[in-house]
């Protein structure tokens, strides 16, 4: 099961749709051809009709409509009002959909239970009623794509979206402080964290702006707890100065950039992959960082745990590059998530020091990582400056010291690189290779499956751990293919540039999409066919 949310940046009204794909195979991408379309207004039909399968059906909200081979009228709004409020029209629609595809009502009840806050029983009840009304209206209607539901209605895996995956990862990684300023599509991460925070020693603080959020987490991390923030590109802009502070003061932080199309405000509720180069180079001058772009909610969980660990281990910023599609789309989880069991302690205290009184926070070491004490935990004074500093943390303008500290920070890259997993590769030695990153993996892998079924020798290489760039693995894997095409949701093929910069390899072509919608396998295939013509 997977579902993507596609809504405009307004609260009510506007054209929104919620797309659900259900399959007994594992699926990971939205599909271009629609079997079932829910239309709250005529506009939806106009927009999506040409994607409707010949035997597909449309649940239609207009009063005047008559039922026919395609259309089934369901008075969403009216039924919603009956249940308690117009705003639940979506829930009525969901009920109707599941009814049509043959789901047992219990399944829906479970979904709603999951979705609504336990503290708001009334809201849950009303929505349940709304779903029921929709469900009943459609019950028994004909539909060619009915699914046979297993006796046990609950899906094999659990349902997880990227936002929840990251929030769970943060809790599992012992994140104790999260500061944020609301911004779509990142707010959901913080929403999940807030709603699950209760049993954990974690505080979530809404800040006055992103400058503050970023600096708050640096303060918290400095004082000894793991800390994170989440935002989107515009907010990330405001965090770049703080990112440099974290780097210069070697304070671990985890920052999520939930990409949405820009530039500027752009399309606030839609998806894109336009920020890769920006996050790689964000903040003035240079410093090592980690950049991960998870391709699914469970990987978002894993990489969040990893990001916290590595940020802490190397005392550097770690950036999670997510996007609206990943964060808001619900996927079934194949394997259960498991916690790390224990959290490695990377800080030291007086007991670890021969002479706490001469503690040097920025001691030059072979690995570049200096012993990190936290303030007011002992006699060791922790002294930090954003100015270039000597080993003690005092401002220093000396040439030798500058070079030594810069080298100390950069030498970390050596071990950091070893932490990076190579990109995922599937038939890399093919005639035709697709190269992609982040949330598009599902669409790419489906496209490749289709091509291979058509007898085309195709494969793909998909990147999720992007920096330090897995240069050798990339060169090796991509280098095997006859030619490769970049699949990215941006205009300039940012990963393509990075690959060329790091490996010298040059793509044969580009499959680029930047309309704010996620990739469909069909997008990839049709553009590819065009290019190959």
């Amino acid at each position, binding site marked *: 099961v997977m579902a993507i949310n596609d809504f405009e940046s307004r609260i009510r009204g506007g054209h929104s749709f919620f797309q659900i794909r259900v399959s007994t195979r594992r699926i990971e991408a939205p599909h271009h051809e629609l079997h079932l379309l829910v239309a709250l207004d005529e506009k939806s039909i106009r927009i999506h009709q040409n994607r409707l399968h010949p035997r597909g059906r449309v649940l239609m909200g207009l009063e005047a409509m008559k039922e026919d081979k395609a259309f089934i009228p369901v008075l969403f709004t009216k039924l919603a009002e009956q249940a308690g409020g117009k705003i639940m029209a979506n829930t009525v629609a969901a009920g109707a959909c599941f009814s049509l595809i043959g789901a047992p009502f219990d399944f829906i009840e479970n979904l709603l239970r999951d979705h609504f806050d336990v503290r708001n029983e009334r809201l849950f009840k009303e929505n349940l009623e709304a779903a029921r009304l929709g469900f009943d209206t459609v019950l028994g209607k004909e539909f060619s794509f009915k699914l046979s539901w297993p006796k046990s209605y609950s899906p094999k895996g659990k349902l997880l979206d990227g936002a929840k995956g990251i929030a769970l990862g943060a809790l599992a990684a012992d994140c104790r402080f999260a500061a944020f300023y609301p911004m779509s599509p990142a707010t959901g991460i913080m929403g999940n964290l807030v709603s699950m925070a209760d049993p*954990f*020693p*974690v505080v979530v603080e809404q800040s006055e702006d992103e400058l*503050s959020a970023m600096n708050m987490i640096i303060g918290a991390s400095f*004082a000894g707890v793991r800390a994170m923030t989440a935002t989107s590109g515009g907010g990330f802009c405001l965090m770049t100065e703080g990112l440099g502070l974290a780097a210069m*003061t070697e304070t671990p932080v985890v920052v999520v950039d939930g990409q949405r199309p820009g530039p500027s405000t752009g399309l606030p509720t839609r998806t894109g992959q336009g920020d890769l180069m920006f996050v790689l180079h964000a903040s003035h001058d240079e410093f090592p960082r980690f950049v991960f772009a998870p391709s699914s909610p469970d990987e978002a969980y894993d990489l969040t745990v990893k990001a916290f660990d590595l940020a802490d281990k190397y005392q550097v910023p770690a950036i999670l590059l997510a996007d609206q599609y990943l964060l808001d789309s619900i996927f079934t989880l194949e394997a259960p998530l498991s916690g790390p069991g224990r959290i490695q302690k990377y800080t030291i205290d007086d007991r670890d020091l021969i002479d706490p009184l001469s503690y040097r926070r920025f001691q030059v070491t072979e690995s570049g990582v200096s012993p990190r004490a936290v303030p*007011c935990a002992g006699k060791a004074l922790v*002294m930090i400056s*954003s100015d270039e500093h000597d080993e003690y943390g005092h*401002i220093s303008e000396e040439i030798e010291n500058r070079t030594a500290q810069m080298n100390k920070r950069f030498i970390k890259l050596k071990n950091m690189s070893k932490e990076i997993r190579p990109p995922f590769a599937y038939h890399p030695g093919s005639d035709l290779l697709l190269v992609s990153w982040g949330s598009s993996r599902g669409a790419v892998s489906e496209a490749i499956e289709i091509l291979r079924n058509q007898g085309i020798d195709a494969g793909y290489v998909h990147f999720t751990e992007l920096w330090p760039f897995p240069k050798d693995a990339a060169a090796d894997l991509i280098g095997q293919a006859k030619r490769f095409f970049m699949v990215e949701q941006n205009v300039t093929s940012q990963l393509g540039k990075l690959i060329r910069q790091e490996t010298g390899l040059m793509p044969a072509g580009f499959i680029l999409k930047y309309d704010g919608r996620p990739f469909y396998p069909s997008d990839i295939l049709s553009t590819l066919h065009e290019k190959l013509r």
Partner: protein
Amino acid sequence: MLTSSDFDVDYETHWCPGCGNFGILAAMKDALAALNIRPHEILVISGIGQAAKTPHFMKCNYFHSLHGRALPLATGAKVANHDLKIIVNTGDGDCYGEGGNHFMHAIRRNLDVTVLAHNNRVYGLTKGQASPTSDIGMKTKMQPQGVLSDSFNPISVALALGCGFVARGFSGDVAQLSSLIQSGIRHNGFALIDILQPCVSFNPVNTFQWYKKRIRPIQEDHDVSDLNRAFALAQKWGDEIPVGIFYRKETPAFSRRISKLADHRPLVSRSYDPEKVSTILNSF
């Protein structure tokens, strides 16, 4: 007994001879010694500027951070460890210019820190541009026609934001300043001490003598619990400049408002519970 000299360090100060910052540094050390807070028990967080360099020149834990951002850092540090005693050294540009938004919202949170705003009414480190508190009409190299904006009144604004400890000090009166700082540190919640400070290099108007002539301690009969009176008093400026505590009110401090922190051990000292993680991972 601690004395000021327990906070002395070798590191040479970067300030001009005669700078008001020396008085502030002396008062800080004196206040800490008087309160018997030892160097390793204090955390100083500062922004960027001449003022913000202060912690380099005394023995303490410090985080000399970014221009304008000391208060968010302090907020995060306080969440991580609400037992921390935090002093913020900040300049008038740092606190009311670049950091103005954080100033307002840290007060709204009632963050329990003591803010020493070294108010030399000019940008010192960047060599003499107008600051938010510069007098209207003051001429600088960048403002040759004189400053055009109304001068920012930190006392008024802090009062308007409901700050629970609002005071003004003078770097030239170390003893009184030390006592203000002590009161500020003892106050549970946001304590603002705006400190009038001569800058001998770039503020030729508001000199030590200029202040000396004008400064008047706030009268004993001033009712520090009366917000409206305090606001009226804050409007006084010119031939007479009131110095002392304008307003006091105790409301729960930031870390008392957060149920996860109040009456709990600091987050930094709590332990990780893998059981709870498993529970949540299995519960959805």
